[in-house]
């Protein structure tokens, strides 16, 4: 189906389907449709895209965090003057912070903003962002067969190249947990290495690495988005292992990886 030689363009036929044409244009197009089978066939083809879009997207409305959104609007300053835009903004964020303290609102978006406001510490912020990202992963995200050793090595080589690392399938392997993929993400326009694994019991987990000059730090632990995080850094990079495996086991896994990646 090539529309190049048709009298009517896809744009015109689409506008016809969408009821966006004037009566005169509609008459013109219908006259052509009656006399030209190829145009009619193209219209029939395009009209197959007429799906129940509205109904399909309806459930996403129910998925919205309505309570949090209402709360967000409810705490916006009622006396905000258009001229005092900056002050209004700060007032709003202050109100959100107050809500957090009061335990009224605990949405992660607010927490993210609070961190951005009060914790300019780059070394913890990247973990916030990664945690938000990994929290979206499900078993399905990592479905499919695991890559071969060669494919793993090739994926890792790309990370090595961008981040100045030297990873191998062995250095990043986790016992009893499947390596699913290694990919390069971006964090504030800087490369971020993400190696994703699937634990048969607790689901996705990931080892993430960024360049870092904060210096060597011993492993520490924290909880983010219902996941356990073990993080550490060496003179050149910061690491975090994040997943839903119990913290003791996470620390063991992290320690293994740490030794192998620093060797």
């Amino acid at each position, binding site marked *: 189906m090539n529309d190049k030689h048709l009298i009517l363009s*896809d*744009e015109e036929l*689409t*506008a016809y*389907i*969408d*009821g*966006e*044409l004037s*009566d005169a244009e509609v008459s013109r197009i219908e006259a052509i449709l009656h006399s030209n*089978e190829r145009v*009619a*066939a193209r219209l*029939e*083809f*395009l*009209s*197959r*895209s*007429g*799906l*129940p*879009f*509205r*109904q*399909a*997207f309806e*459930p*996403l*409305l129910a*998925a*919205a*965090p*309505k309570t*949090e*959104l*209402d709360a*967000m*609007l409810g705490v*916006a300053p*009622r006396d*905000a003057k*258009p001229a005092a*835009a900056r002050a*209004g903004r700060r007032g709003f964020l202050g109100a959100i912070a107050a809500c957090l303290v009061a335990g009224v609102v605990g949405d992660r*978006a607010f927490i*993210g*903003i609070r961190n951005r406001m009060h914790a300019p510490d780059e070394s913890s912020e990247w973990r916030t*962002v990664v945690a938000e*990202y990994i929290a*979206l*992963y*499900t078993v*399905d*995200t990592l479905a499919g067969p695991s890559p071969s050793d060669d494919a793993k090595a090739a994926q890792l080589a790309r990370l090595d190249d961008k981040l100045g690392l030297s990873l191998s399938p062995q250095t990043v392997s986790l016992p009893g947990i499947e390596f699913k993929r290694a*990919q390069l*993400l*971006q*964090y504030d326009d800087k490369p*971020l290495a993400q190696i994703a694994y699937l634990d048969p019991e607790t689901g996705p987990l990931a080892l993430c690495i960024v360049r870092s000059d904060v210096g060597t730090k011993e492993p520490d632990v924290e909880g983010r988005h219902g996941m356990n995080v073990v993080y550490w850094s060496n003179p050149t990079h910061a690491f975090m292992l994040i997943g839903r495996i119990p913290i003791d086991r996470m620390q063991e896994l992290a320690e293994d990886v740490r030794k192998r990646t620093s060797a």
Partner: protein
Amino acid sequence: MPVAYTTFPAYSRAKPKPSAKPAALEEKPVAEALIISEADIRSGLADNLVRLWRYGLVLSHRRDIADDLVQQTCLRALERVEQFEAGTRLDRWLFSILHSIWLNEIRSRRVRLGQGFVDADEALVIDGAHATETHVMANQVLRLVNALPDAQRAAVFLAYVEGLSYKEVASVLDIPIGTVMSRLAAARAKIAANVSGEGAT
């Protein structure tokens, strides 16, 4: 070859009747809408939060970013009450604010894959674990829309889900009507090809 060109199975637009007129004001008579106060905007925002969030999710594929987008849209709308044109649709105005925040402030930063954010399928599907047949159908439609390039996806969402006219879509996206038409035509051709490919005509 007989072709039934006048029927469009499952075609879902609310107003299939050809019309070149701008969308009518559905709720507020113009006379009453002349003076818009912050309270009006606030109440309009309250009515539209969930729809704004959904648009944010469609654009970003991320729930947390959708949260952020709604929040910043609220702030921006309340800061710019005086820029709202009395007599126009408030929801359209809010959509355009959200879209511009997305385009100019959010899209270019934070974690992202080379071609966009998370794989579309990760964030934009309905709870797979409890998939009923309706959900399966809905998810198929969502996947088809998610598979579109960003610009086409936004146009399809606004026109076919939110029911905006071409003119309104052009205004929200801040592009010429001709561009809206070509995006929708390209999107329809792509979706039609995918639907035909699956044999699900």
